């Protein structure tokens, strides 16, 4: 450390400084007399004057300091910009390269794994979506068949006027079969009885027509969803519903409306099967 020369004070230090080949120190004695420094008058006032009114010397100093500051900033910037491998030994560099290569292989393997996983997940998600759509389609179908949801669609509304109360369950059953034959998807009696697989028709003790424990009061209204023209044709053919009711045995009237939109809101609550079990 340069603290060694501290024991020697004053003059020896000056001489030692002169011995070292310092450009400015060597040149200083020559330049100083030739170009006497515009040394401000000593004292605080002089310093303030020099501070406020800089001369040529200060300008030179400023330029040099600006240059140095710029160099320092540039160096710091370039040092911070890139990790410096220039002072590493060959063995260290080789090791570094090996590490990087191993890391690259590991990451590539990871990329492959993740891509495989992603493909699997994508195809799985697609399959799940298809299965879900299929399940939803079947669910809708079965719900309509079982009559557990309200439905709407085009169809016909048949009003049966039966002044003599001669409409029999058999007649209604025949009409129902004919409507089904004509493609009726959903049938409802009197806005209250949804016709499903387990629907039954019978006469009660007072001779009234009963469907699923509900008495069908006249006028009996049959609503069927399906192709309206086909359904009406299915009701009107010779020997069908209309000719039976308007014939002499019943003596009623039938009115058929084809509708763009029929809403069937009555539903069947599915009951737990007691005896039948899925195989």
């Amino acid at each position, binding site marked *: 450390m*340069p603290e060694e020369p501290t024991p020697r004070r004053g003059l020896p230090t000056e001489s030692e400084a002169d011995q070292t080949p310092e450009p*400015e*120190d060597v040149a200083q004695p020559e330049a100083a007399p030739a170009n006497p420094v515009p040394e401000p008058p000593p004292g605080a006032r002089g310093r303030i004057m020099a501070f406020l009114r800089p001369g040529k010397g200060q300008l030179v100093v400023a330029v*040099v300091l600006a*240059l140095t*500051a710029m160099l320092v900033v*540039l160096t710091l910037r370039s040092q911070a910009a890139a990790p410096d491998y220039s002072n590493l030994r060959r063995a260290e560099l080789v090791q570094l390269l090996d590490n990087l290569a191993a890391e690259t292989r590991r990451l590539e393997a990871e990329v492959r794994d993740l891509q495989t996983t992603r493909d699997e997940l994508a195809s799985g998600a697609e399959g799940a979506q298809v299965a879900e759509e299929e399940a939803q389609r079947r669910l809708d179908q079965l719900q309509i068949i079982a009559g557990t949801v309200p439905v709407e669609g085009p169809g016909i509304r048949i009003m049966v006027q039966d002044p003599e109360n001669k409409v029999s369950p058999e007649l209604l059953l025949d009409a129902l079969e004919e409507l089904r034959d004509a493609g009726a998807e959903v049938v409802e009696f009197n806005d209250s009885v949804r016709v499903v697989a387990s629907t039954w028709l019978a006469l009660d003790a007072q001779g009234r027509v009963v469907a699923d424990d509900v008495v069908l009061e006249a006028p009996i209204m049959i609503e069927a969803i399906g192709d309206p023209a086909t359904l009406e044709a299915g009701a009107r053919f010779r020997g069908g519903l209309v000719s039976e009711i308007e014939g002499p045995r019943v003596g009623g009237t039938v009115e058929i409306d084809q509708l763009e939109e029929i809403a069937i809101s009555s539903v069947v609550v599915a009951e737990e099967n007691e005896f039948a079990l899925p195989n």
Partner: protein
Amino acid sequence: MLAVIGIIVGVAVGLLLEPTLPVFLEPYLPIAIVAALDAILGAARSHLEGVFSDKVFAVSFISNVLIAGLIVFVGDQIGVGAQLSTGVVVVLGIRIFNNAAAIRRKIFHA
């Protein structure tokens, strides 16, 4: 005052303009900075000793930087660049410590 402004301007230029130095100059920047520090400390010392001259300061600054860069450049050409730059840094470091010691004696008289 101009000196302070000079430092600020230098930092600002370095930070804002980001002048790009030629690549072949980059290895000499640290050496140039050490040489510049040495020249500045020498100037401070001569100022304290009352023999400061702006001309000598400017010339010594430029020649210091150039010679330091030249030595490292020559060393690079003949294959001992690392060793020579170490040598330059050591020499300049010794001078910096010398100058710093002189300044310290002038200021603190100790």
